[in-house]
């Protein structure tokens, strides 16, 4: 056998063995494939939902006029309003608004819809009260009711309105909240796959003396690294496929970019994140050493890289820092491929940061690795 084939033999032998081993291990399957899916289902249903905004309101109809009753029943039937019919007094309503359980209270005064002295037809004024902390909802509600009243007005006063606004939803073609969330969920999955796998497995193998046996053979550290990286990249790709299919079929993910670009980004991201796990797990002598360091590395990344909430909500200074955290370019490029059909050239800055990190992290991992 040639020297090259001899050097590659441990790698080509290890990878299929390692993958088969994964599929025999129910616990591993749960953590690698099922757990991310559950995570996807939970987060997916939080963020996909129906996108209609609805206001939780209490309605006090003090008037007996036909118009007031009609308006009340319209509000109860309308999806736009979520009328809380349990609230019967102003005190109750104020309490619920204070707790954030109600957005606003709508009052139709007793003279609403009756003809006032000196006027030709019925008139009235709707009173809206809302909590100070909920000003946005209150104002939006006011303008919604205002436009409802315009409709009513037009039935009493014959006017032709010269300027109008029509709004039409483009929901069918647009991106949903889920399309943005998916990249974060996928990033989180790759992070836990890459970091929590090796940081639990390698210290355990060291304690059992399994890696020590490899040390007594001519197997080189780089061969062991490459073999593990390839096997993990394959698993990462498989996790991507499963989550992608679930996202498309369950949550109607809008995939605008190329699957190949997405796969390239995912494989590069997997290799990078696995390097972190390899550095920590390869350094630690036992699980007690590895676990806290793994948490210390992953938790800030999860919170600062836009897994749970968008980076643009953070202060500018923090945003500049998060850009350079290893997980951020991974999540960003996944999102750019899915939502904007970004090409690999468009992704050059993100890929550049990823490759830079990969080199640094693997150099550290190589330096810190020990078989025992």
């Amino acid at each position: 056998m040639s020297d090259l084939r001899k050097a590659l033999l441990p790698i080509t032998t290890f990878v299929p063995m390692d993958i088969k081993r994964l599929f025999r291990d129910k616990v591993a399957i749960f953590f690698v494939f099922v757990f991310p899916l559950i995570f996807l289902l939970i987060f997916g249903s939080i963020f996909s939902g129906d996108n209609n905004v609805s206001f939780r309101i209490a309605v006090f109809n003090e008037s007996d006029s036909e118009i007031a009753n009609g308006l009340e029943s319209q509000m109860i039937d309308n999806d736009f309003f979520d009328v809380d019919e349990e609230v019967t007094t102003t005190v109750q309503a104020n309490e619920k608004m204070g707790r954030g359980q109600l957005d606003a209270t709508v009052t139709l005064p007793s003279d609403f819809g009756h003809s006032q002295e000196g006027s030709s037809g019925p008139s009235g004024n709707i009173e809206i009260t809302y909590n100070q902390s909920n000003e946005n909802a209150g104002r939006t509600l006011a303008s919604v009711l205002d436009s409802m009243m315009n409709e009513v007005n037009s039935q009493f006063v014959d006017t032709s309105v010269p300027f109008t606004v029509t709004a039409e939803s483009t929901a069918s073609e647009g991106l949903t909240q889920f399309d943005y969330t998916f990249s974060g969920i996928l990033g989180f999955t790759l992070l836990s796959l890459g970091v929590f796998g090796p940081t639990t497995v390698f210290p355990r193998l060291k304690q059992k003396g399994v890696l020590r046996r490899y040390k007594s053979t001519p197997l080189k550290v780089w061969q062991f690294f490459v073999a593990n990286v390839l096997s993990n990249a394959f698993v990462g790709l498989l996790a991507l496929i499963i989550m992608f299919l679930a996202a498309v079929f369950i949550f109607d993910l809008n995939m605008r970019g190329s699957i190949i670009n997405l796969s390239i980004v995912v494989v590069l991201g997997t290799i990078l994140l696995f390097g972190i796990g390899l550095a920590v797990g390869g350094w630690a002598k036992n699980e007690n050493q590895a676990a806290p360091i793994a948490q210390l590395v992953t938790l800030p990344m999860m919170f600062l890289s836009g897994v749970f909430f968008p980076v643009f909500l953070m202060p500018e200074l923090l945003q500049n820092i998060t850009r350079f955290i290893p997980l951020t370019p991974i999540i960003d490029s996944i999102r750019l491929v899915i939502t904007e059909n970004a090409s690999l050239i468009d992704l050059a800055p993100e890929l550049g940061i990823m490759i830079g990190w990969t080199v640094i992290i693997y150099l550290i991992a190589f330096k810190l690795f020990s078989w025992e």
Partner: protein
Amino acid sequence: MSKRDTKNIVTVKNLTKTYDDKNVVDGISFEVKKGEIFGILGPNGAGKTTTLEMLETMREIDGGEALIAGIDVKKQPNKVKEIIGVQPQTPNFEEKTKLTEIIDFLASCYGEKVDAKEILKSVQLEEKASSYPEQLSGGQRQRFSISTALVHGPKVFFLDEPTTGLDPQARRNLWDLVKQVRDRGITVIMTTHYMDEAELLCDRVAVMDEGKIIALDTPKKLIKQLLAKGFKKEQHVEQADLEDVFIDLTGKALRE
């Protein structure tokens, strides 16, 4: 070279290992002849395992030198790794991995492809080819571990306390295996706590204490030397001991 059976395959000169200014292995020298079973005996902390690990390339050699088949262990550890086989004290393997897969992988570490089933057959484990190591009994695991340490046909085979924790049947089986390894022309270097084991298996033994070799010879000669000093053992009239009773009652067949 192979015809000169008395040729030394391992030469150790002034081998030293220092931890915290203390020499746990203190300048020991010895030779191991090709094709023999060489035992290193001694109480806990005598430096047996450290000595073995330095020869196995698993521990840095702090002083002196060791040659295996003419190769300097300190200078060319990678070359030494290719001609030695190592049986660890507690043989463990990755779980959920078939025995044949483990053999294939360990052979690949030496850049070799082997017939895994044939290797399993040599240690009577051919029926376990598709089992996982965690499904094996202690004795089976020992046998399997030995077979994996020999996948590449090494010249020297190291065993560290191979029978600790095994039942009498499994111990006897392992002794047979070690003899078979020797009969294949592989030199065996082992440590042990059990004197009966050393007396029965080893062609020569080195007795270590506090990092030094305090005696080195064949078991028979060491006993003769002791008797020559006028040592008398309390006389026993029985021609058997409790272990003989145990084996007689339970048979020699291996239990798994």
